[in-house]
């Protein structure tokens, strides 16, 4: 049993390290800085979608206010660095923290509603944030937005004026995000979130403070979405009201659904695909939303688990065929010998 568990962890660690190496090497071998740019954009969106995944995938609450926090994060940091001449390295954590604070009362009020009402409520919150950003000319620049947002200040000898240097910056944050999410989701806290998604009434009967957990997830989601917003603003060096609009939320939603909600790899896979397709099909831009719309409907009906979920299911089915004993979930590449303790090795991924 010990070996089984250690083997599984080794394989997992190995895969992650391999992916990390690929990610680190990529910009050095990419033939064109445009290809690096596309990946930077997907990484930034992935960070936001990881936040989104926590509240929508793991907690099962369809919050449609997410782009609002993305926008708030972007604008706030833009203003801090441009108007207050703050250093990026101070602005980033400050913005993320403040955005999280703002999300607390919003979450508190929003979660008094349930189901569809919650979705509509958060959608309206998102719209209000978007409208305010759009109309508050004096602060946000209205429809023109903020132009000329500075890139991150130099860190000692490292400067961030190239796409490649920004790539590594964003990659670092992505790795941190994935790390935090993985830890969170595999812990008792993660289990609690999922129990609420399954049946919040039962969870409450078992003594779980559902409201507190919902607000916690909402706050964490906003924190990471804000970080994504900040990185976005300082990379593109321009931010307009569209970043906080409903379409942005729908982009997050689509990326999450394609990739696979309530999974660790889902947000990244989904963002890569979604951004890749968007950038790649620039010429077919008009068809993008047509396809996206149809995709949303198809996914929700036929592939609710997205790509990652589908792959997991496939792997599970294959393992069931080859393993002698009942494997309750994801184990390792080799058939597990642990019988009833196979359950202990099941990780909620």
């Amino acid at each position: 049993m010990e070996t089984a568990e250690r083997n599984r962890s080794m394989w997992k660690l190995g895969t992650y390290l391999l992916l990390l190496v690929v990610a680190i090497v990529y910009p050095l071998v990419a033939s064109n800085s445009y290809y690096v740019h596309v990946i930077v954009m997907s990484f930034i969106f992935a960070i936001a979608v990881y936040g989104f995944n926590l509240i929508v995938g793991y907690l099962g609450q369809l919050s449609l206010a997410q782009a609002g926090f993305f926008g708030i994060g972007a604008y706030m940091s833009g203003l801090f660095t441009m108007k207050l001449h703050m250093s990026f390295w101070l602005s980033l954590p400050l913005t993320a923290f403040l955005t999280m604070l703002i999300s607390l009362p919003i979450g508190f009020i929003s979660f008094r509603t349930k189901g569809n009402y919650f979705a509509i409520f958060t959608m309206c919150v998102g719209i209000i944030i978007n409208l305010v950003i759009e109309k508050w000319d004096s602060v946000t620049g209205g429809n023109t937005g903020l132009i000329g947002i500075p890139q991150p200040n130099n860190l000692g000898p490292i400067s961030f004026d190239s796409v490649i240097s920004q790539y590594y910056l964003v990659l670092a944050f992505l790795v941190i995000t994935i790390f935090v999410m993985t830890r969170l989701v595999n812990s008792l806290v993660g289990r609690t979130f999922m129990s609420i998604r399954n049946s919040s009434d039962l969870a409450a009967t078992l003594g779980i403070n559902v409201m507190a957990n919902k607000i916690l997830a909402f706050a964490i989601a906003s924190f990471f979405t804000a970080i994504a917003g900040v990185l976005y603003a300082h990379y593109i060096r321009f931010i307009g009201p569209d970043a906080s609009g409903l379409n942005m939320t729908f982009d997050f939603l689509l990326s999450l659904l394609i990739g696979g909600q309530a999974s660790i790899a889902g947000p990244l896979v989904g963002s890569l695909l979604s951004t890749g397709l968007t950038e790649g099909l620039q010429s077919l831009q008009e068809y993008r939303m047509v396809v996206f719309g149809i995709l949303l409907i198809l996914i929700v009906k036929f592939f609710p688990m997205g790509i990652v979920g589908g792959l997991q299911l496939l792997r599970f089915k294959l393992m069931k065929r080859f393993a002698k004993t009942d494997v309750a979930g994801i184990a390792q590449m080799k058939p597990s010998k642990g019988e009833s303790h196979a359950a202990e090795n099941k990780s909620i991924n």
Partner: protein
Amino acid sequence: MNLFFQQLVNGLTLGSIYCLVALGLTLIYGIMEVPNFAHGHLYMVGAYVTFFMMTLYGINYWLAAVISAIVLAVLGVLIERLVFNPLRNGPETNKFVAALGAMLFLEATARLLWGSDYRSIPGIYDKVIQIGGIRVTEQRIIVIVAAVVLMFALNLFLKHTIIGSALMAMAQNRDGASLVGINVNMVSILTFVIASILAAFAATLAGPIFLVYPSMGTMIVTKAFVIIVIGGMGSIPGAVLGGYILGLAESMGATYISTDYKDIVAFVLLVVILSVKPSGMFAKETK
């Protein structure tokens, strides 16, 4: 004072449009428990159909409205059969997401086919009438009158026909209704047909006053949702009352507070009301 009455009329006009759209939405939500976010985009398609009928084929205004109603009815049924019916037994949020998908699809297709330019449906009731100190275009009066006529007709249908009673029965208890032999599928289709007809007329009536463009659906459907959340899902009087309240609030707000932020009225209203009463204004106490 004249300004006030002027805006009153404007508010009633706007409210009439909102009512018709909200009525369709509340029927769909109340009877079928489907949060049809694509309804606003159906309305948008209706506006375009009327526009093209009138400008390309020179068809009469009211006839164009009827054609629009037919087209929308077909489209509505397609959406019901292809998108919502397969998902009827799943979790709530799936229907919501599917509706969002339909919405994106419709808007993008409209943009693709007809471009993003603003269009204007030619108005035939341009004459300005003077009542007391107010100057109103005939169109606005037509809107209000037509809306009232339609609502009246709907009420007659629901209260005094057998099919109408079937719809009401389903709104109260879907399973029970099918047990007593009501054909759930027929009712579902019929609900969408009615909602689509209402939307088509709303779009045609609004066309000459407001502009037509692909993303006009989002605003109106979100506001319609605000209305039915406030007025009560499935409540017809609620939708009517809510529609006029919102229309008047926006009109007055635009005049006396700020034009820029007038769109926010609906959303702030929803946020305020749901903050105080999370289950909606007319939710029944089950605890």
